[in-house]
């Protein structure tokens, strides 16, 4: 009888798997350990209060990153809200209307845009998007709707939660539209035929079929949210970087990631700031992990259940 030899090829793939796991675990541990002093010092208030006093004497330092948490969530919600109709419209055009050649160009274009270095978006936004939004959107919004708390104060510089949200929407739309487009394209032709055979118009058919891929659209939104909340450089250029806890989206704000990016360089000067920033990172880590897991899980479950 032959003894089965160990599969060498299988074995040489182990290190790769182990390294990935080890990196993930070590990241989590690093963040936990580095955050501990901040938790000791400020407790849960670190996430529940809006205060940022960086004093030379460590006893006078006070930190609470609620405004940044709020800003992260606020900008990401704007991003998803604006990106959703964009990506749905783009997907429908690409799948249903675009001639074959145009279709490929459009798919490549959106894939390229999804992969562009984010600093490109940031710099473009500073010189083009923010001033354009200020003049054409933010000022009119304030002039007309200042009685709504969302637009209660005018934007002075244009650098604001809204600018960050819109910029993020532009950045995550290609990503969300890839998920939506792929799901829409996966719908078996027999359902399209069925809808048309009932005398439905193109619009009615599309609406009906989007009902079918709703779970995929949701997961696209969730994953886009995950991307938006983690985006750093571009956001820190346009969000205004102010600790504002406000519903007014025309006001400058902060996000967790831009807070870390802006403060980390000089955090070592202060007694507790480094640890506070690690604790902020931990928060983002957990949110990002949760959101992405949820989105991936929903998408997988839908793809498994989809009837072909």
């Amino acid at each position, binding site marked *: 009888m032959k003894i089965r030899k160990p599969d060498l090829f299988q074995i040489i793939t182990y290190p790769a798997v182990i390294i990935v796991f080890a990196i993930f675990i070590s990241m989590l541990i690093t963040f936990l350990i580095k955050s501990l002093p901040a938790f000791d010092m400020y407790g849960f208030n670190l996430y529940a209060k809006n205060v940022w006093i960086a004093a030379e004497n460590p006893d006078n330092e006070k930190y609470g990153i609620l405004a940044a948490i709020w800003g992260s969530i606020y900008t990401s919600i704007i991003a998803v809200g604006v990106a959703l109709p964009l990506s749905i419209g783009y997907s429908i055009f690409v799948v249903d209307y675009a001639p074959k050649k145009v279709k490929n160009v459009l798919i490549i274009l959106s894939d390229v845009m999804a992969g562009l270095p984010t600093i490109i978006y940031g710099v473009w936004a500073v010189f083009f998007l923010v001033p354009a939004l200020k003049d054409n959107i933010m000022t009119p919004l304030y002039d007309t709707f200042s009685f709504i708390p969302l637009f209660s104060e005018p934007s002075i510089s244009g650098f604001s939660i809204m600018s960050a949200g819109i910029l993020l929407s532009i950045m995550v739309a290609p990503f969300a539209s890839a998920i939506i487009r792929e799901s829409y394209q996966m719908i*078996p032709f*027999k*359902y*399209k*035929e*069925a*809808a*048309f*055979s*009932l*005398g*439905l*118009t193109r619009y*009615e058919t599309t609406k*009906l079929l989007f*009902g*079918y891929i*709703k779970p995929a659209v949701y997961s696209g939104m969730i994953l886009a949210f995950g991307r938006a909340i983690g985006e750093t450089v571009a956001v820190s250029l346009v969000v205004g970087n102010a600790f504002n806890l406000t519903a007014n989206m025309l006001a400058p704000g902060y996000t967790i990631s831009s807070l870390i990016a802006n403060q980390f360089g000089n955090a070592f000067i202060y007694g507790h700031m480094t640890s506070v920033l690690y604790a902020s990172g931990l928060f983002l880590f957990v949110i990002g992990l949760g959101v992405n897991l949820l989105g991936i899980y929903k998408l997988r479950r839908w793809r498994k259940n989809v*009837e072909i």
Partner: protein
Amino acid sequence: MKSLEYAIETRRLNISYGDNRVIKDVDMKIPKKTVFALMGPSGCGKSTMLRAFNRILELNKDAKVSGEIRLFGENIYAPGVDPTEVRKETGMVFQYPNPFPHLTVFENVAIGLKLNKLVKSRDELEDRIHWALEKAALLDEVRDRLKNYPSELSGGQKQRLVIARALAMKPKILLMDEPTANIDPIGTRKIEELLFELKKDYTIVLVTHSPPQAARVSDHVGFLYLGDLIEVGKTGKIFESPGSELTEKYLTGELI
């Protein structure tokens, strides 16, 4: 008008995909309130022709139709005819049972009615849905499961659900594209029995690749071969004494 004896009439009907002619100069008349079987080996163009009858063929951008198709005397390919109106009058049942998986049994039957605003009240909608399910011989099996999803139904039940979905629109013509091709024998028998009931009120065009099925259920039969209509006539006559050698070969299984 004499042509009104017929539910469907084609005149010099030609259909092509690009340069490939798949239906060639077909002149055919389908009498009202009968089952008309369109048979032929796979690839002969029968499904294509069926899809021209409700203009669903144009979902395929490569398909070109020329000639006339008259439904109750009216040319549906005349300029200005709205294909969605044609489709409302011609229900269709497909080879693969295709109820919408994200809609309940009830909603599946209701969807065409709702979106086309064919009913005025919730009561009318419910009545119509019960009526359609009854007509499709499915009501007794799903009475307690109207709020469930079609994934729970058997293939045969799904297919009858789709028939109910088509009937709910009260079409005049029912187009069926090999409706039993993917159904087990019991389900097939139920659907075939259903055809006898339905032809009292509807004109049914049934595409089939099975001569025995055509013999069992149809009143008239047309034999298509490579895009040519070889023969058309009363089912009994064609099966007893086919007028063409090709038909005879097909019926005896020599032509696949």
